[in-house]
């Protein structure tokens, strides 16, 4: 059975604006009954015998200075002083005020009550003039906003420091500043039956694969929810497999990341009230890349990328390898090391699996607590967790010191993966592998890895295989992939796996490619 949203104020219902201003006032006040933050103002143009004018806006969301100085003042006072006088143009007062009287840049017209109320609820001001069946909507949006700040989740040493804020206009401006191209399109939509959240879809028309844009729009149009509070909502609608461990949409706080993605032929999506932009399609390699990679020198970056892949491997495998080696194949490691591990585990009453699970869960607890705690107390978590629990657990003989080392390395490794969502996915994979390692040892780890790999191979983000450009292998994309980044000079083509319409990024020397 198809459920429907029970909401009378649906966009399809439009009440036309009547010629009688009193009717309009009644219907507006009816709609906005008990909304005490709405301010109404009724006045006359041209003195006592003039025409009735009615404006309303939401207090705190509209710019009062602008209304006072450039709307009310010209209409109420200055209109009487200049030629032609009010008496002469009495009938065209609406046209006159639209064309000449108000010195504001941005206004629209609306011919029904619902649209004007929606505009007012977004921060604009609506003006009704007696005898006219249209309303003027002046863009007066001015609400408390956070300024542009350095993004907290994606910090860089080299690179721009501006991050997205909660205001979609500021965010689109931050991206537009980096792409001064008329073919860079910002398509806007409103989603959410009640929240009417603004969504902006950004792409460069002659680079992007049209199918991707169409698919994004199709998926956005199919959303029929009451409210969108954050881009996280949209993200879950965009993903083909929302139950997958791995995110199929990239999130970022940085306008330069969005701009770079858009230049590669991807699609960026901004959501009002959210400082996180979404990027589709995305591949696993993108999650291992930091924006800084493209600004620093290529050799160093390539080294760091190898390091990150290693970190990914450690973050997934370290505890399960510990379990497999200590309980199944101690012969693999050198005899001395095996003996010393056995010696430290001597007093430990639990099997390696339980030991590892205890420590990994403790680590997860510490991490979660560290995020939730207010910042001044947050640092104590490190002391409590690291020193007290680590040290005390070892002295109490619950876990072995080697296990503490393994957990610590795992934690550090998982923090050095640039993307938070992927490192979260890896954490869960880690637990799966630990269970398998406790059953089958090394064989179990390989089986578990195969399982994860099957899933990754089957995953697609907007038609792009998740493991591209490794599988399917694309030689020219290897220049910027998991483990290497060639200098910009040699990256002549855009990534092929995103299937850009225009593949050439720069006019380059063909011979330079192979070097």
């Amino acid at each position, binding site marked *: 059975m198809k459920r429907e949203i029970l909401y009378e104020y649906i966009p399809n219902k439009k009440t036309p604006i009547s010629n009688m201003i009193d009717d309009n006032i009644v219907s507006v006040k009816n709609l906005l009954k008990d909304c005490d933050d709405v301010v109404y103002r009724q006045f006359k143009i041209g003195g006592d015998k003039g025409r009735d004018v009615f404006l309303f806006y939401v207090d705190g969301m509209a710019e009062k200075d602008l209304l006072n100085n450039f709307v009310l003042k010209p209409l109420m006072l200055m209109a009487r002083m200049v030629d032609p006088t009010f008496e002469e143009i009495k009938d065209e007062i609406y046209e006159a005020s639209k064309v000449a009287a108000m010195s504001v840049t941005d206004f629209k017209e609306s011919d029904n009550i619902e649209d004007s109320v929606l505009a007012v609820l977004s921060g604009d001001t609506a003006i009704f003039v007696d005898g006219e069946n249209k309303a003027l909507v002046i863009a007066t949006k001015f609400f408390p906003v956070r300024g542009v700040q350095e993004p907290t989740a994606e910090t860089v040493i080299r690179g721009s420091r501006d991050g997205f804020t909660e205001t979609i206009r500021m965010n689109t401006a931050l991206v537009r500043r980096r792409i001064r191209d008329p073919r860079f399109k910002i398509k806007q939509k409103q989603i959410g039956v009640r929240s009417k959240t603004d969504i902006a879809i950004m792409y460069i028309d002659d680079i992007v694969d049209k199918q991707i844009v169409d698919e994004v729009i199709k998926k956005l149009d199919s959303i029929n929810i009451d409210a969108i509070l954050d881009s996280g909502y949209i993200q879950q609608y965009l993903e083909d497999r929302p139950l997958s461990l791995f995110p199929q949409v990239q999130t970022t706080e940085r306008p330069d990341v969005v701009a770079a993605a858009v230049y590669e032929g991807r699609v960026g999506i901004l959501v009002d009230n959210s400082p996180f932009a979404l990027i589709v399609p995305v591949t696993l390699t993108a999650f291992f890349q930091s924006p800084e990679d493209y600004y620093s020198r290529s050799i160093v970056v390539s080294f760091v990328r190898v390091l990150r892949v290693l970190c990914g491997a450690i973050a997934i495998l370290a505890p399960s390898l510990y379990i497999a080696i200590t309980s199944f194949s101690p012969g693999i490691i050198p005899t001395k090391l095996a003996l010393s591990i056995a010696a430290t585990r001597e007093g430990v009453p639990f099997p390696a699996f339980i030991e590892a699970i205890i420590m990994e869960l403790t680590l997860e607890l510490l991490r979660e607590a560290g995020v939730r705690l207010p910042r001044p107390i947050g640092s104590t978590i490190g002391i409590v967790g690291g020193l007290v629990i680590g040290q005390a657990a070892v002295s109490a003989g619950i876990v072995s010191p080697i296990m503490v080392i393994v957990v610590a390395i795992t934690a550090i490794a998982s923090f050095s993966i640039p993307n938070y969502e992927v490192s979260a996915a890896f954490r869960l994979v880690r637990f799966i592998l630990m269970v398998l390692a406790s059953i089958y040892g090394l*064989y179990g780890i390989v*089986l578990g890895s195969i399982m994860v790999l099957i899933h990754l191979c*089957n995953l697609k983000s907007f038609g792009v295989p998740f493991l591209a450009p490794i*599988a399917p292998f694309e030689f020219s994309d290897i220049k910027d992939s998991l483990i290497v980044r060639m200098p910009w000079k040699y990256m002549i083509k855009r990534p092929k796996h995103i299937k850009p319409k225009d593949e050439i990024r720069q006019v380059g020397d063909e011979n330079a490619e192979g070097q």
Partner: protein
Amino acid sequence: MQKGNDKISTYQVGVLIYLTILGVGILTLPASMAKEVENDGWILSIIAGLICIGIVYIMCKVGEKFPQNGFVGTLKLLFGNILGTILAIPTFLYFLLFAALEVRIFGETAKIFLLNRTPLEQIMLPLIVLSVILARLGIEPIVRFFETVTPVIVFVLFILFLIGLNGADFSNLKPFLSHDILSFAKGIKSALFAYAGFEALLIIFPFIKEPNKAFKASLGAMVFLIIAYVITIIECYSVFGAQLTTKLMYPTMSMIKASDIPGAFIERVEGILEALWVLFVYTTIVSLLYSLSVVAKDVIGHSEAKHILVIFLPFIYLASLIGESIIDMMKYGDLLTTTIGLYTIFILPILMYILSRFKKAGGSR
């Protein structure tokens, strides 16, 4: 979701063929070669490889002529509907039994080198289930999986060859060519079946993006395989000598076990290599099971290959339990290769090729 989940590139064809052939064979190959012709095992292996390339060429010729018909479709076209279907049934059985055999041999080696106390059934069952899961997903995820594990497999082979060099004495290889043609001819059979697996080419032809380049890709895969086999055999002989190699069950593993790496962090590599060997076996099984599902689908006339494998899962498992011990199983393996194996890999392709010469260029269905 976007459509078109069934086209693979030339490079992917090569990877697919390479990983399908590379399975448990390389573990026992040096021993079986040494049994036949002692020191000349590696030469025998090269000869067998060249013969297989010939068969691959024939398969590609047939495939190029009827690129869209698929294996069973081509059989039906050449032999008529009923006979074509009957001819496909041994092939289907071959894929099932070969996959089961592969699982079993791996299970036995894993029991020796990795999980001494785990029951054989428990080692084999998850492998079969995982293979069915991937084989169900269709050709594109399968080749993507193969491509992803390729670096790991190349790395493992590299390590294997490097370790084998340790303690190798190449004078053990002498004398060369001490056998006459007759003994080579006798030994060629077991050498040929070390390359079994390329018959997947028959099945995947409709999915290849550029059918005329399929031979080039498979040729590359075969050449790399011959190289890998020859290096393995030569290293085993030079470490143990051909005489001793015949006595070993899994000479490749024993070779790794025998050599210790000075100053390495990992003391006994064979455990890790055996664990990573899962990938070699897994890719082979997946490829065989996928071939099985496609053939079964066409024989039955069902539209989706996906559904078939779940039905066959218990049969694969049961087939993998045939034989009490490893000796029984090897005998059964011999029986398998000499009958339906020979039929699928050699007789049928040659028959198809001869008949396709007489048939006018194949129209699509």
